[in-house]
């Protein structure tokens, strides 16, 4: 980890609190708090050997838990005493007997309510001597995630946004998150990454133009001191090797900026281009009529498409197509370009989803059967992240 500050969090064995209370009864004054002392000592040593400063607000948190098996049963008398506030549950999990409820905070709380004579009788003042030293049970490193933002392009079909696995087999060979995420993971050496895009497109749909905004959250990054040049190198490499998945404006972003991605998904409009097949070529009147309608907004009522109905609520959504134009290519093939509100199902608009999307390109053409052959997203009108200036 290339951090400059750390914050050390220490978890002491539970018996320490009881022993401190016992000493308090003995000496009639509060003893030095062991936990803070240990925390300070460890922090100081770490600071010296690793050249970091100790700061409780640090982005790098180290959780150290100590255990001491010899005194593990010290708090039992608190659970057994009359009027205890500690509630424990014993159960068997995965073949191992466990007991829960005797947490540190529960013990401290109950200890405050327990009278001195009980501590004296059941436990002992001063506390019983011990033979073994406490040892480290675990050490967990937690660092604030690093966020890398950008816009991705998908220049070929059959690429999903994230790895698509059905019944243990990969359905698509590539995924956007892996092509862009893996090099980033190697560069900043994080535990794992998670990609969030501003909306999605189907695996068989390309994402062209300037790409779709996304961010990748990298958990527990080791190296955060990354130059823009290093990041741009990843972007350049993908572009120069003609990768099917490319990115633009790749850069490190602030955690607060990630909100923009999700907000954009719901409010921003998208531009599409599709190849459409009509059962009977349209007359020029029909074509003109459709284009005239398309120059103004078209309101749609879309019932949840059958292809997603198994995992979405059945609703009818009102969506607007802000602009549409239809051009004849040759024979039964037409090219349609659409600008639509976020959340519009374009494929269903073309073929009508068995009449469940009204109107549809099929219904507008006088109920000629229409099907969508290819779909491309030309543009996602959310301006994020900002263009990288060299």
């Amino acid at each position, binding site marked *: 980890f290339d951090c400059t500050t750390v914050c050390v969090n220490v978890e002491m064995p539970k018996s320490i609190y009881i022993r401190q209370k016992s000493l308090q009864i003995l000496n009639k004054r509060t003893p030095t708090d062991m936990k803070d002392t240990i925390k300070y000592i460890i922090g100081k040593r770490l600071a010296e050997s690793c050249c970091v400063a100790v700061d409780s607000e640090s982005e790098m948190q180290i959780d150290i838990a100590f255990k001491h098996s010899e005194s593990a049963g010290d708090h039992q008398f608190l659970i057994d005493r009359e009027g205890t506030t500690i509630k424990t549950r014993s159960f068997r999990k995965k073949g191992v007997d466990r007991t829960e409820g005797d947490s540190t905070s529960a013990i401290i709380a109950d200890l405050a309510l327990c009278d001195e004579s009980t501590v004296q009788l059941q436990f002992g003042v001063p506390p019983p001597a011990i033979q073994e030293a406490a040892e480290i049970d675990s050490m967990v490193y937690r660092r604030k995630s690093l966020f890398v933002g950008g816009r991705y392009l998908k220049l070929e079909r059959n690429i999903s946004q994230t790895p698509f696995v059905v019944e243990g087999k990969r359905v698509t060979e590539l995924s956007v998150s892996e092509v862009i995420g893996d090099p980033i993971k190697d560069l900043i050496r994080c535990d794992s990454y998670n990609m969030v895009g501003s909306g999605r497109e189907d695996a068989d749909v390309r994402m062209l133009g300037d790409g779709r905004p996304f961010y990748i959250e990298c958990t527990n990054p080791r190296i955060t001191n990354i130059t823009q040049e290093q990041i741009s190198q990843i972007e350049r490499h993908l572009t120069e090797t003609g990768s099917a998945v490319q990115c633009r404006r790749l850069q490190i972003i602030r955690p607060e900026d990630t909100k923009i991605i999700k907000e954009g998904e719901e409010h921003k409009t998208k531009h599409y281009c599709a190849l459409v*097949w009509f059962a009977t070529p349209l007359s020029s009147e029909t074509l003109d009529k459709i284009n005239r309608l398309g120059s103004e907004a078209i309101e749609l009522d879309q019932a949840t498409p*059958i292809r997603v*109905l198994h995992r979405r*609520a059945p609703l009818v959504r009102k969506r607007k197509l802000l602009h549409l134009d239809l051009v004849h290519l040759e024979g039964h*093939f037409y090219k349609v370009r659409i600008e639509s509100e976020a959340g519009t199902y374009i494929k269903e608009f073309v073929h009508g989803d068995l009449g469940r999307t009204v109107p549809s390109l099929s219904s507008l053409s006088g109920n000629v*059967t229409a*099907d969508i052959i290819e779909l491309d997203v*030309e543009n996602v009108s959310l301006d994020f992240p900002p263009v990288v200036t060299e």
Partner: protein
Amino acid sequence: MELVRDARSVDIEYDLAAYGYLDAWKDRPMSFLDRYFTTRYYCAPSPDATAAAAAQKRKLDQLTSDPSDTSDPSDTPAPSDPLPPAWQYVRMAPNKLCVIGLASMHPLLDSSCQASVGRVVRVEFVQHVADAQVRGKKKRGAQRLAPDTPVCLVHTDRGLVFSVRAAVHGQLIEWNARLAETPELLYTHPEQAFFAIIKPGTLDNTKIFDRCHEQPNIL
């Protein structure tokens, strides 16, 4: 508002030659549905049973309300030739949802039966189907169905009533209100004239199509 057109977008070219196979669609426009669905066929055990039962009921009602009426409704309108089996289609999407409707060789859609069967005048969804309110992702309130459960009754102008069955085990997700409003869709827009969408109780294709056939063979 002027649309900003990216110069690149004008360059999207589609390789139409790759789609030569779509020529086959020109003659059978409904074949595009095969891209999206796996089609199977179902036939109710005794297709005229409901028609006969409905006739019986009418007869009983008439007897109780007007004893002097001597006409026998169950005699009309008996078709002179036996009707072809009432085949329904089951179109299953990749996500297993099944769309059910009348196959093109169903008596109601078979032009050669028009004379005896008549034209559809009313599409009446069964009471508990019409009343059910399906809500949410988990599809709460959905009516449970067995393959032979009647989902809808179709009335013709010759007094015949055909029962449309669920064809699969599952929950009824949606019934086609547009069809109920516009029964003519059966003739004008067959692909929009589905009756219902059913979510099967299992993901196993063999079990889903337990009562279905690959082809509508004459039984």
